């Protein structure tokens, strides 16, 4: 594929991510932080996030599986997930976490399970999206181009 075309696609894709509310300004900040000294900063942080969140999601699932659900623990996990997703800029995951916490406050097991599904879904969605994004970037880099800085589209 041609380099320019790829760059165009990347820009388009990034914009769509922002438009769909999957990512927010925080991700932009992350990108700003990436420079020569930390060339893979965004990827690093994002993969950290995914590792962490997988773990958290497992923990949450396990906690919810128990006979008597410890809502405090679930809440703490969700809170952590919310914090990390907010830091990465995964807005929709964050929003789902907010809903999740409400369920936790109500001690609503079914609601929690539903929210967990929601969070998982959002999580995989953002994961897929970001993986695609990074792949695109890698392709561009491999093709010898530079990744254009995402501009504020909103």
């Amino acid at each position, binding site marked *: 594929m041609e380099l320019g075309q790829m760059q165009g696609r990347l820009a388009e894709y990034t914009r769509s991510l922002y438009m769909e509310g999957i990512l*927010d300004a925080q991700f*932009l*900040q992350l990108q*700003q*932080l990436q420079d020569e000294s930390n060339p893979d*900063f965004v990827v*690093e942080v994002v993969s950290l996030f995914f590792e*962490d969140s997988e773990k958290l999601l497992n923990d949450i699932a396990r906690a919810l599986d128990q006979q008597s659900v410890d809502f405090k623990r679930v809440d703490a996990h969700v*809170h952590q997930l919310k914090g990390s997703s907010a*830091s990465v800029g995964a807005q929709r995951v964050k929003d789902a976490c907010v809903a999740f916490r409400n369920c936790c406050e109500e001690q609503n097991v079914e609601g929690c399970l539903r929210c967990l599904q929601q969070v998982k879904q959002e999580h995989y969605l953002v994961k897929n999206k970001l993986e695609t994004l990074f792949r695109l970037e890698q392709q561009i880099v491999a093709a010898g181009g530079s990744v254009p800085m995402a501009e504020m589209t909103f």
Partner: protein
Amino acid sequence: MADETHPGSCECSPTRSTPMGTPLRKVLDRISGFATPWRSSSALRGRRIFHRDVEREEFQYAATRCLSSYYSVFVARLAIMVMLAILIGLLTILTWHFTKIYTTKSLNSLAYGLRNELLQRPILRMWNILNSTSEITTAQVKLSEYVFRRYNKPDTQAEQVELYESMRDVTWALFASRKALNAITINYRNGFVQAFHRDHRSNNTFYIYSDLVNYSISASGSSYEINSLSSQQGWKDQSIHGNISAVWYQEPLDPITGEKTGKAKPIPPDDLINIAGLSEVPDGVASWHVAVSKYTDTPLLSAALPVWDPSNESIVAVVGVTTALYSVGQLMKELVEVHSGHIYLTSQEGYLLATSTNAPLLRNSTQGPKLMRAIDSDDEVIQMGATWLQRAYGNNFSQSHEVHAENARLGHEQYYIDSFFLKLKRLPLVGVIIIPRKNIMGKVDERAFKTLVILISASLCILFIGCICILILTNGVSKEMKLRAELISHLDARRRAEASSNYKSQFLANMSHELRTPMAAVIGLLDILICDDCLTNEQYATVTQIRKCSTALLRLLNNILDLSKVESGKLVLEDAEFDLGRELEGLVDMFSVQCINHNVETVLDLSDNMPKLVRGDSARVVQIFANLISNSLKFTSSGHVIIRGWCENSSSSIDIEKFPLDHKKSQPAHKIKFKQQGSHTKKACKKENKMILRFEVDDTGCGIDPSKWESVFESFEQADPSTTRTHGGTGLGLCIVRTLVNKMGGEIKVAKKDGPGTLMQLYLLLNAPADGTEQHYRVDFSKHSLVVLLALHGRMGRLIMSQWLHKSGVFTMEASEWNELTQILREFFCIRRSARNNGFDAQHSLSEPLNTQVLSIQDMRNPVFVIVVDIGLLDLSTDIWKEQINFLDIYFGKAKFAWMLNHDTSNAIKMELRRKGHILMVNMPLYKAKMIHILEAVIKERNVELQKKSSNALRTTKESNLHEYHEIDTTHFDVASSDDSDMPEMRSSNSICGSLDGEKRRERITKPCSSGYQNINNCLVELTRVYSKENYLTERDPCQVGHNSHDVQNEEPKCCTQASLSAEPQSENADCREQHLVSSCPTAQGNLYSSKAMNEQKSLEGLRILLAEDTPVLQRVATIMLEKMGATVIAVGDGLQAVDALNCKLSAEACERDCVCEDRNTRLQTENRDFPLYDLILMDCQMPKMDGYEATKIIRKSEAGTGLHTPIVALTAHAMSSDEAKCLEVGMDAYLTKPINYKLMVSTILSLTTRTAYVKRELTNQ
């Protein structure tokens, strides 16, 4: 237009076109005129469709409620009415019942008695008649028997005749004695008949006898022995035969004497009277029967009794007595006449015997008169009564049966019918009395009926009235209920509205985090963009513009959030000691930058009785004034904005005197008002150690219309809507101000003002400082014999300042422009010189007041001249200013110059001034604190100078000046350090944790700091420190560079940091601003921008930061952020690790430091050891194992003995103030919300670490 829209008036319009009479047209016009405003209002309402929908909804809601309440009222009314009706009905019925029943009962019993009595009497009479008849009969029989015995067995005719004669006499006697008797007959065996008959109608008495010739004695005697049966037979035959054949004679008699009065005449037998024969006594006992005769119209009661012969073997004769029942009927008539009604007697078979009427009792038939049955009676009543009885009880009365019927309806009337059974042997009688009910019960019935009617009508009336009453009452109640329901619904609506507004506020407060974060991100990103080098000029301008707009938007957001915070009750005022004057000075400094831009003078005029320290929420107080001042500035294009403040004491009269200038004239007017307001609070305040601080913000702007004085404090309200376009703003500022002022127990209002502009008056209720010692600004310079020449451009500021100086014992002169200044200077010094030299009088050109001033100054011994020159007096547009400065050089030795700089005064001028030795430079505006600084500096300088003069010879001007300043600073430092020398530990700890301490301490800290700094820089006065810092690199002497060369590397960034920090006027951090106040330099943002931008990249250079964060993502992000800014980051995963890291590092570092610094003196060593190994800790609040709060507590505890204070910044995802409070409570110093805002983090970190950096640097330098 109106007619087109409204169909109603469309119909009107054709009528207009027709040739109508004018009056009608007028009326129509009027109607349409009425319609128009209505329509316009509806159109207006249509515009606010949203509101109207809500209103309609409310209305419908209210309507349904009204309807339902109406129904309920209706039902209640109905129920009450029904109940009333039932009650009244019951009452009526009961009343009626009791009256009626009891009366009826008693009456009935009475009537019964009466009837009984009535009936009893005729029956008694009947009885009497019967009795007398029987008595007579018996008597006749006995007499007859006697006579027969006497003439026993008459054999001869003569004897026979004699017998008959004697019988006749006896019978007559009996007959005469009984007037009521109708007839007495004696029928002899032989068929001879003797009878007396009395005709009641003709009142004649007759003797009737049969022809004696026909009867033989023998014939009769022969058959005497036959048995009764045969004798009977014989009698019968005889009588029949005799009757047929016999000839009877009737002889009229004198009814009294019995004498024969007429001739006997023959009559047919049995014609006149009924002669009782043997047939009537078949068994030889008495018999009764009712007979009728042709000649009487009443039935006759006849009794027959046989006369036995002496031997008692045969019947010799039969005696018959007949009594007319006429007298019974007579009695009945009499009775009935009295009592009315009908009485009749019948035989058992129903034949009428006697009635109370005149109706005939007998019926004429072919066989002569016959008894009539009662049912056939001619009298209707009797007939009907009989019929009724028959119908009711059948034909036969049982013997014992008595009938008492009370309500027999006969014809059209009610009757009482009573029947009695009279038992007579062989002749049972039935008496019947029929009395019309009317006669007995008529009145009663009538009364009862009337009573009933009256009762019913009365109860109906009561019911009706009751219903009306209920209606009226319930109407009132229902109205009240309706009102109440409406009220309730209104209250409900209000409550809901409040709740929703509360929800709104709460929502907004909760949204603070969500709203601020993106804004902060936008601003942060814009800052990053601005720092970018590759922007073109236009881009840079655009971005700057965006930056400004974003800041404005953020400010607006903050305003709204502040407001909502206050409204939702989340705002908690803190209670800390602060220097109110200093805060206000800082504000004025800040705003003066804006002021100078558009030619408005900002003057701070605080009364001397203002306490130096007060307790309260400094940030909010500052916010109040910031809003007020910015508001005033916004609307003031030229003139001045004065902030006056004084403390309301019991001695308020002194205040007036203290009040400077034009304030005085407006003072009394509103003084009274204030007094009224304050008087009640004052007493309370005294007790609670509170004081009332009064302020005025007076501007010369466009003013506010008096009608809007109240409404300007409402949300989103501006005095004039058009100002939004020209001045911008949201109208939230004053609302926030009022809310805050009220929250502090004060009040704010717009007051009347003489001139143009607005005068805002407010008072605040603030606590006095805890220690109770009031510190005032009052100073007295009189003993220093100072003369101050105020060469200031702004009139108000100059006036107020000179007034104050005058009061403080300083002699002042004023100049408002350059020429005036020069004139005063020239003449003044000329005069002095001449006066000193030869007394030459050169005062001719001086104005008179100045003249006297000068004269009085001349009287002073060794005065010190201070000339305060506004840089604005110089002509800066051209290069003339240089010459002007040169001109002033002449007076340099004679007077001390203090320069008032503008924030945008160019470096060239500053350099030039400094080159000339003018070191005393302060920024506009001039207020008391600055003046005091200037005067103190001057006094100190002079003291030193005097000392020097006595010891040393004079050096060259410049050198001496430099040296002097050096010396001053040393003195200064010495004084300061000698203050602190006995407590070095204390000082160091102060210098680290001073951010939360009082201003006084701060002052002390900064002095040594700055003096140390000045030692390096060699030529700086405290007041111009920032300026010199800024120019540090360029200004430094080479030798000094050399001297400090080993420090430069770490010195430089810190220095710049300091500068850049000071260069952030909008920084929200208090420390930052205080720093900026201390340095008294409202900084020039523009000048510093580029350098700052450069430096900010590495603004955290050299800082060691411990990051405690469990989320790896955040940890990574924060690390990179901090590292990018040059900080060294040590990241740990939880609170426990953080504590551990701090502890082990502490010891390790301490050792290290000891080694490094071993050549230094011991004090420094200890100081160094006391340094925290991390300059700052970023602490996440929620962490596993040990959360941030816990960790902070432990850290603070471990620090407790050492005097260390490592700044801890909380990182939390909670954005509420309560969390902030919690953070600060456990000992954290600041608070950052996630996601981390780049810029805010930097400024927070810097504000917390600069002091550490200072002390560090100072120590390393030494």
